[in-house]
């Protein structure tokens, strides 16, 4: 191996007073960092390969391990930070595009943290969700402009033909994560948790494993540029279909699942040869305009007898509002918008960190635009791209979303520690990997339980917050930006978000 200028990112500290040389760390590290020397009964660690995933730290039965950022200081330079230098060293060594997993880790403004929610005091009563009903049920799909009813012998009858709707017990869904990018057990965990929680999970562009067909009513099936795993049964099994145009972590580019991750099972599910790279083209080669998109939407609806909502997923980019308007007019039942901070299994780091706009601004802009055009009811909006807690859910709904997609949060619930090495296939938590040594580390019973717990916990918190505002249905919060105030934002940002500055009444 040639000389490398890269220095270790992390440092493993082993408290020898506590280490019992039980070798759990040795067995758990997929990066082969820990090494047991039998003749000395001693465990050594080579921290140069440590990715900071904390698997060893978490499983060490005596708490003997600590992982720290390597305290190696470069000469202070606000411009040339250690990360920038390391990236250059890496590229000078490899000559390649730098890859990353998960969402951007850059310090872009996080508008959620500059938005604050309202609560009732004196002039309007708050509601106690433990005593009074609180409605979180959310319907995703096109709503009619008006309802026609007739009066008959049995009472009122709805005359309007309703478009197909997805019913969610709470306005949270699991984002698209493909089988291939994540393990079968991770997919199964998501599917079971969706079933338990009465929400949806999303196949991504990985197709649907036959064993997961039983969760079809909780499945959104993606149709992406590579068309992997798309066949009539796939479309029929799912509850809704989603045409994936773009992804927040890598707007404008396609996907690349390396051949090593295309196992026999993945190959069957994706309908591609085993071991071959799965390349999703950057554009859909049959969609070069809103009209083309409309054709595909109609084709999918035709294929499924107009019984399932068909949505479009796009990345949040600069002119998102007119694009969304076009998509709504093309006949989509919902638009999922994925913001700058959205996650991925693998993306060029430079694109992940620099392309797109934050989800808060995108949703605000799209909601405003659709309302101005009078077509907001024709399409539901799903926000994605780093929804970190129930507060973020509340804020994005108040900015105009109908529901949210959570990807990173779901992975974290299953054990992800955001080491950002998904693309290596060596996920020590058994999530972003197809390695049989690693995939068994996620017991879907535990995974689904933890996911369902997260959904339950957030839903309870949302009810509390809604109650505090004096609102008894999540629907009443949607686009209700009067319940938001901005702090530390300039006027341009406040205008883009459509909210008043805190203290402005």
């Amino acid at each position, binding site marked *: 191996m040639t000389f490398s200028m890269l220095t270790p990112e992390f440092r493993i500290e082993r408290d020898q*007073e*506590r280490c*019992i*040389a*039980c*070798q*759990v760390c040795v*067995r*758990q590290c997929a990066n082969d960092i820990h090494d047991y020397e039998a003749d000395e009964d001693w465990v050594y660690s080579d921290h140069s390969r440590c990715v900071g995933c904390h698997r060893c730290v978490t*499983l060490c*039965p*005596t708490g003997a391990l600590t992982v720290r950022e390597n305290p190696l200081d470069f000469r202070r330079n606000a411009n040339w930070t250690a990360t920038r230098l390391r990236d250059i060293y890496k590229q000078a060594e490899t000559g390649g595009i730098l890859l990353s997993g998960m969402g951007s880790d850059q310090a872009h403004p996080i508008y959620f943290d500059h938005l604050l929610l309202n609560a009732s005091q004196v002039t309007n009563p708050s509601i106690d969700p433990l005593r009074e009903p609180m409605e979180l049920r959310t319907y995703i799909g096109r709503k009619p402009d008006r309802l026609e009813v007739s009066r008959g012998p049995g009472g009122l009858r709805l005359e309007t033909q309703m478009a197909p709707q997805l019913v969610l017990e709470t306005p949270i869904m699991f984002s698209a994560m493909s089988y291939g990018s994540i393990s079968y057990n991770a997919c199964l965990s998501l599917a079971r948790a969706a079933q338990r929680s009465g929400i949806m999970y999303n196949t991504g562009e990985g197709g649907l494993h036959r064993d997961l067909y039983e969760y079809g009513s909780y499945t959104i099936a993606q149709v992406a540029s590579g068309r992997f795993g798309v066949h009539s049964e796939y479309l029929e099994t799912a509850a809704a279909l989603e045409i994936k145009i773009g992804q927040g972590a890598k707007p404008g580019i396609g996907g690349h699942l390396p051949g090593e991750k295309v196992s026999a099972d993945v190959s069957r599910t994706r309908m591609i040869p085993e071991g071959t790279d799965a390349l999703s083209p950057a554009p859909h080669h049959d969609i070069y305009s809103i009209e083309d998109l409309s054709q595909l939407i109609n084709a999918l609806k035709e294929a499924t007898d107009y019984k399932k909502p068909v949505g479009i997923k796009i990345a949040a980019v600069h002119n998102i509002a007119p694009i969304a308007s076009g998509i709504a007019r093309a006949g989509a039942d919902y638009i999922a918008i994925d913001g700058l901070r959205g996650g991925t299994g693998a993306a060029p780091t430079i694109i992940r960190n620099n392309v797109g706009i934050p989800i808060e601004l995108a949703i605000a802009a799209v909601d405003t635009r659709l309302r101005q055009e009078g077509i907001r009811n024709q399409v539901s909006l799903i926000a994605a791209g780093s929804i970190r807690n129930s507060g973020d859910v509340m804020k994005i709904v108040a900015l105009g979303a109908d529901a949210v997609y959570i990807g990173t949060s779901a992975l974290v619930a299953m054990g992800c520690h955001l080491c950002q090495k998904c693309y290596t296939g060596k996920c020590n938590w058994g999530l972003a990997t197809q*390695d*049989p*040594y690693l995939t*068994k*580390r*996620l*017991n879907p*019973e*535990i995974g689904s339980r933890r996911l369902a717990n997260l959904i339950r916990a957030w839903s309870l918190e949302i009810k509390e917050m809604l109650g505090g505002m004096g609102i008894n249905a999540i629907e009443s919060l949607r686009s209700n930006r009067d319940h938001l105030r901005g702090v530390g934002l300039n006027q341009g940002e406040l205008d883009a978000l459509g909210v008043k500055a805190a203290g402005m009444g």
Partner: protein
Amino acid sequence: MKQIHVNEEYCIGCRLCEIHCSVQHSRSKKIIKAFKEEAPRALARVLVEEEGPLSFAMQCRHCEDAPCIEACIVGAMHRDEETGAVLCDEDHCVGCWMCVMVCPFGAIQRNLVGNKAASKCDLCLGEKVPACVANCPNEALTFIEAANSNGGEPQ
């Protein structure tokens, strides 16, 4: 009775079960002390088998018609009336290894330290949850009410 259920699909081969079993059967029952101060280290009564990515932990199945009880020449191997667990009275055992010969799971070990005696899972002697189960990070071991008798019964 409750049984330790082994689910090999989710065994991650970390061997925390063996480690905690050894601690549970140590003198101090304190993990650091048990490993660093107590010699010889208490035998783990659960054994992890591994081959490629497949692994599972194996301990006494506490068979309904336990071959080891049949084979024990001194009556040291017996069924605990309260818990239903198959236990070996190590003070009574003379180390003839008849039990080793008949256990189809290979779940009985020879403890050759001190008074030679058969060493096997005792379900942690009435602990609510055995140590191996309590410390399995992936619920590959669970302690559940057995729906039926197991395969240890001689036909």
